[in-house]
């Protein structure tokens, strides 16, 4: 009976994700800091799994960061999103997949608010018509890109070239997962596993052979805080929150961190560099940091893609300790080559954090 009870509870946290037919919208942060993650998400879905995912060149930001920095009115943010929905309708799609957790939260918040206040939806329709002469249908389903990778994690595992296992010892790699606040803290029923048992990343890690670490501050914010990072004077908030997480996960010796939101991997990567410069402390072994990857990057490594094609050279924390544990083959001399293998020099080295 108890088992059935748990099964029943768990079923409430599941999502029936449509298998195909998606209108894709990009992320301000992911394309700027992890450009190859977006490229490989589309490549895996389209070329490897044969899915129909369409991108219109006319789509834009959802305005989520400007909105959560309180710089635009709510109706402006809603009408920008309504325009994305109009582009989706014009392209003949009904399911929207977004590359960003802030966007996912924004789309979800807007649809839920319209459901509760239909007069507001009517006003946004009017706004959009006045501004652009466009009309929209609400999507039947809004997914975050990681929801699709989660859905297809088994297919990816079947095609795996590398697994999340230490090739020397056979030990499953210890992975910290960080799902990002706006994935399910605002609307828990919209995220796989909800806010209590988020499973979107854990499911990938388990399918690909790794072991998920549970640690006290697992659900704590990465520290982005919108204005708390974007304004230079406020970054103490941001690094302090990241520091709190790293102090909490350190005793569990993570081999890597996998992230959901496009901002979180940037902060969890870069603040390790800043903490090392400020305090001399590093969280990996041998003076390295803990590699922080997007779910697309981790999927790409599992599928055997070249780490430098996946953009892992754009990280400040060296990924080589993880590559070596997984047995991923790579050419160290090719890491920092530019377009057409052009020599574009190499980045400078941090004074504390060990890099390759």
């Amino acid at each position: 009976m108890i088992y059935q009870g748990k099964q029943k509870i768990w079923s409430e946290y599941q999502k029936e994700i449509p298998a195909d037919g998606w209108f894709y919208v990009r992320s301000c942060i992911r394309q700027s800091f992890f450009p190859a993650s977006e490229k490989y998400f589309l490549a895996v879905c389209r070329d490897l799994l044969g899915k129909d995912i369409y991108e219109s060149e006319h789509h834009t930001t959802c305005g989520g960061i400007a909105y959560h920095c309180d710089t635009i009115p709510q109706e402006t943010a809603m009408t920008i999103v309504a325009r994305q929905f109009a582009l989706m309708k014009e392209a003949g799609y009904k399911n929207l997949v977004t590359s960003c957790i802030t966007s996912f939260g924004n789309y979800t918040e807007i649809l839920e608010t319209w459901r509760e206040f239909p007069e507001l939806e009517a006003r946004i329709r009017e706004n959009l018509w006045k501004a652009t002469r466009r009309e929209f249908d609400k999507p039947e389903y809004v997914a975050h890109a990681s929801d699709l990778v989660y859905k297809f994690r088994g297919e990816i595992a079947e095609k795996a070239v590398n697994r999340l296992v230490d090739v020397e010892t056979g030990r499953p790699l210890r992975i910290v997962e960080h799902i990002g606040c706006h994935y399910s803290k605002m609307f828990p029923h919209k995220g796989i596993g909800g806010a209590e048992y988020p499973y979107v990343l854990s499911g990938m890690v388990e399918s690909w052979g790794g072991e998920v670490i549970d640690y006290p501050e697992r659900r704590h914010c990465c520290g982005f805080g919108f204005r708390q990072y974007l304004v230079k004077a406020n970054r103490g908030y941001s690094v302090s929150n990241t520091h709190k997480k790293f102090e909490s996960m350190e005793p569990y010796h993570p081999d890597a961190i996998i992230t959901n939101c496009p901002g979180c991997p940037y902060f969890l990567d870069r603040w390790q560099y800043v903490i090392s410069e400020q305090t001399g402390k590093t969280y990996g072994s041998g003076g390295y940091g803990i590699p922080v990857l997007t779910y697309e990057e981790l999927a790409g490594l599992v599928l055997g893609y070249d780490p430098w094609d996946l953009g892992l050279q754009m990280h400040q924390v060296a990924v080589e300790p993880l590559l070596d544990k997984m047995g991923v083959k790579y050419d160290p001399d090719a890491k920092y080559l530019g377009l057409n293998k052009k020599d574009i020099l190499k980045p400078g080295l941090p004074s504390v954090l060990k890099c390759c």
Partner: protein
Amino acid sequence: MNYFEELSKDYRFKEGFHTCINCGTCTAVCPAAEFYKYDPRKIVSIVQTKDNDAIEKLLKSETIWYCGECMSCVTRCPRKNGPGLVIMALRDLSIRLGFFTESEKGRQIYPLTKALNGNVLGYGYCVHPATFSYADHPESGPVFEWVLDHKEDVYGRLGANYRGKGPGVLRKIPQEDLDELKAIYDVTGGTDRLELVEKYSRAKAEQMGMSIEEYTQYTFSHCSPGHFNGEE
């Protein structure tokens, strides 16, 4: 003006403000409260009193600007309040009334408004490498200094369509689409908001004896002591 009535018109307030039982769960889980002199329980409690003078003090205070809008409080409130949503409504009203220039953290709305909306209307995205400067972001590390010095090469090597035509990573957004975004700003109050922030910020800069360029840099980078827990 009756501030409570004004807040009650905001949909985020309608969603996020019900009856607060002052349990303090929001403060316990809040990443901002951990480091800043910030207590969302107290803020919701003050709003709940409907005391106009007390709410005006909030609208002019530092404290409403400490929240990171992570919405961790929304998950945990046993009464389905959203203190983070109440904060968004308070900030919106503070900006509309020009009260945001009364606090150091509130004045940061100016550089944020300029940078983010400049990106949205100029590049179609809130953040863009073309306007991301290493000097403003030394925490992005030597690796990103290298990326920014070799944008076309690094993004091109990774398959981006950097400032190119058609779809793809970091493509150039067609002018007709940027024009539509501007029209949306015009119709929905976004443009008015930008002008309002500009007007109040210029007046404050003059009052502080600064040019608008100096004010932008100062509000972006200066942090006075006293914001963090345990600081005098």
